[in-house]
């Protein structure tokens, strides 16, 4: 038994004991597990390693914290409720089309920013009340938002996992638009109909419209009330379209949007709202910090190499099976981490296939890491925006769609050359 395997068992054991026996917060359990790994692994400067590991997520933490503030402000200003009323009233007669459109809307922030969290906390939060009033359950709404968010993260123009994989083999981010659209849009339509239309087609939508509250909309007007979300989306698009002219960064865009929510609709205590947002975000931010420490210690002690080489040790014919299992599992640490640590070696092992289709497909599987506990960013934040305390119920709903996503991605890898020949 290798020392790396024993260290791995030790870290997993300490983490599990902290979480389940001692009922510590997940982040604290990770900190203790990483510390145990660093000490047992004999790292010379364990504190430096623990602190350094956390820096991998500084940008992500800033984005999540500010996005949560924006979402809370948009809700407290009354804009969220008003937007729901407007959209549902306009499209309630064609619920199937509405569901597909709303799913695509959730994807947009992820497509622009490459972040599933951005999708969930902006468009996902806006669309969730629309799902509710049309008759969807909170769990179904949360599952659809999570799915749309990770598909948005993979859909073009911005797909960070593909860029990470490409960076590992010096493949520029060129020519990925069509395969990424082929991988994501049909799945988005399927999930919209599966979770959305199937659940709302029996609901009397006329009655739903009657129950909508238009008072805030009438008081402030659509232009003023919806200005914050419009400004945030416009700034995201402008940043993408003119990166050399406008480069604000997502945290600043969300902060500007938050400030606008304060003056656009109902008056609310912005400090109180921001504090509530941070309280909600803190457990996830803590998990990211803990994950950073764990990755650093796993890498320094050789546990990461142990995992990667063992994943690559299967015969060539079982490689796809190992891809399907190991990349989502490693996504428990982070989807981007899975793309880097496992996506690149698997990509190198699959060099005989069409590289663009293969990398695009691997990125789709890597995105499933955002469903994998304990980080499970897409599922945790979807639970927050639909108002579910425990995100495990959403995860259960995501199991079959996740298998479908893996099946589609593997099919694309298997037939990469044939698919490439189609366009």
């Amino acid at each position, binding site marked *: 038994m290798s020392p790396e395997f024993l260290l791995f068992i030790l870290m997993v054991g300490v983490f599990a004991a902290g979480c389940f026996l001692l009922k510590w917060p997940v982040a604290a359990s990770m900190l203790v597990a990483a510390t145990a790994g660093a000490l047992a692994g004999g790292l010379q400067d364990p504190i430096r390693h623990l602190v350094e590991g956390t820096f991998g997520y500084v940008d992500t933490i800033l984005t999540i914290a500010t996005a949560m503030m924006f979402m809370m402000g948009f809700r407290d200003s009354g804009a969220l409720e008003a937007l729901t009323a407007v959209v549902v009233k306009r499209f309630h007669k064609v619920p199937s089309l509405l569901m597909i459109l709303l799913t695509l809307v959730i994807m947009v922030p992820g497509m622009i920013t490459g972040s599933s969290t951005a999708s969930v906390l902006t468009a996902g939060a806006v669309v969730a009340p629309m799902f509710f009033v049309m008759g969807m359950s909170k769990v179904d709404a949360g599952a659809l938002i999570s799915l749309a968010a990770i598909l948005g993260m993979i859909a073009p123009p911005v797909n*960070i996992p593909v860029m990470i994989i490409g960076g590992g083999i010096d493949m520029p981010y*060129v020519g990925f638009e069509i395969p990424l659209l082929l991988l994501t849009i049909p799945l988005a339509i399927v999930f919209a109909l599966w979770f959305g239309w199937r659940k709302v087609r029996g609901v009397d939508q006329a009655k739903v419209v009657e129950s909508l509250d238009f008072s805030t909309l009438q008081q402030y007007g659509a232009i003023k009330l919806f200005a914050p979300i419009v400004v945030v989306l416009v700034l995201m698009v402008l940043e993408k379209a003119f990166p050399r002219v406008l480069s604000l960064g997502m945290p600043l865009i969300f902060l500007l949007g938050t400030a606008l929510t304060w003056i656009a609709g109902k008056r609310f205590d912005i400090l109180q709202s921001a504090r509530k947002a941070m309280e909600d975000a803190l457990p996830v931010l803590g998990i990211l910090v803990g994950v*950073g420490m764990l990755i650093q210690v796993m890498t320094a002690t*050789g546990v990461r190499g142990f995992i990667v080489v063992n994943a690559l*040790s299967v015969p060539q014919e079982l490689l796809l099976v190992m891809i399907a299992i190991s990349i989502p599992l490693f996504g428990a640490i982070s989807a981007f981490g899975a793309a880097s*640590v496992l996506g690149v070696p698997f990509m190198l092992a699959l060099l005989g296939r069409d590289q663009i289709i293969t990398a695009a497909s691997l990125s789709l599987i890597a995105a499933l890491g955002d469903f994998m506990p304990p980080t499970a960013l897409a599922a945790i934040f979807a639970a927050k925006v639909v108002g579910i305390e425990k995100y495990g119920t959403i995860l259960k709903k995501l199991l079959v769609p996740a298998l479908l996503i893996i099946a589609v991605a593997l099919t694309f890898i298997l037939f990469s050359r044939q698919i490439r020949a189609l366009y």
Partner: protein
Amino acid sequence: MKKHTITAILCAAVALIAAAIAGTSFLEARKQTPIVKGPGVSEIKMLSDWFPGLKGSPGDTEVYILRGAKPGASMLVLGGTHPNEPSGHLAAVMLIERAQLPSGTLYVIPRANASGFTHNDAQEGAPQKFTIQTPAGPRVFRYGSRATNPIHQWPDPNVYIHASSGQTLSGSETRNLNRGYPGRPDGTLTERICYGIVQLIKQENITITVDLHEASPEYPVINAIVAHPKAMSLASDTVLGLEMQDIAIRLEPSPVNLRGLTHRELGDFTDTLPVLMETANASQGRLRGRTDEALVLTGKDKWYVRAARLGRLYVPYDEKGHPLDERVGRHLAGIQELAFSWTLSHEDQPLEFEGLPSYDDLMTDGLGAWLNPPSAPQS
């Protein structure tokens, strides 16, 4: 005092202590380790002497000039483009400490991305330094990051757009020196360093530019020379010469569609003949096991041995590993062979080296035997 308040104070105190200990080691990493000037060094300048826009910035870096006894061609050697690829930095240091030129001029930038030497990549678990024993005592060298320190250039955009081509890459590549050429005078710190290097090449009419790198053993372009089309003839002769010394090396053409790299942009934007050389470094790979000074120095790694048996690598890998002595030896042999091949076909513009250890010398004696003593006059 309530119980949770006491807990919070305790946690804050522990966090502050951890921050102080880690912060001290991060600050320590900003101190440059000394390079001992050798007998061939005529002058030490700064990159800002060619591009004043870098003066006083963390991107400014030393340029060592070794002028030959007779005029001839010139060569620029870039070490430390990626400070987590130590053989490039060490080969550049060896040139500064040992080389003497009967003819021609050598420019050496041992820390091309000086900012990258001041930190480590988060979550890579790398050592901050490594030590080489010399007969006169230990010499310490920094093991840095592939990219510019975010303290000096932050934040990264989501997507990095290469300025002159519009090519898009992952946002973190914004801080990768070897994705920023030909650079911009008003760009990011990384782009300004690239611009400074391009100005040096243009103003000094550099004949040959050699960018020294390492690659992880699972990466296809390894133990290789990558050459711009106009440097292909010179690189071909060099490969033949190295093969005659029993140093197996591949020749790769610079890809047309991968932009921002030295072997592409320096060839397109200047008159120099650019080549890039790669050796096999386990300490930067994704398959590596325990990551520490020993791995950097010896290259011995049981997971890479296993990966080699599985057919997952692009270099032979056994229990002997690929030690730093071997990797520096390959780079130095490549540089000397480039100069030799050039001089063979350009007798009126010779470029000749003396005083350097051969590949066999380094494999026999080790790097420490050829580095200057740490107590000698330092730059």
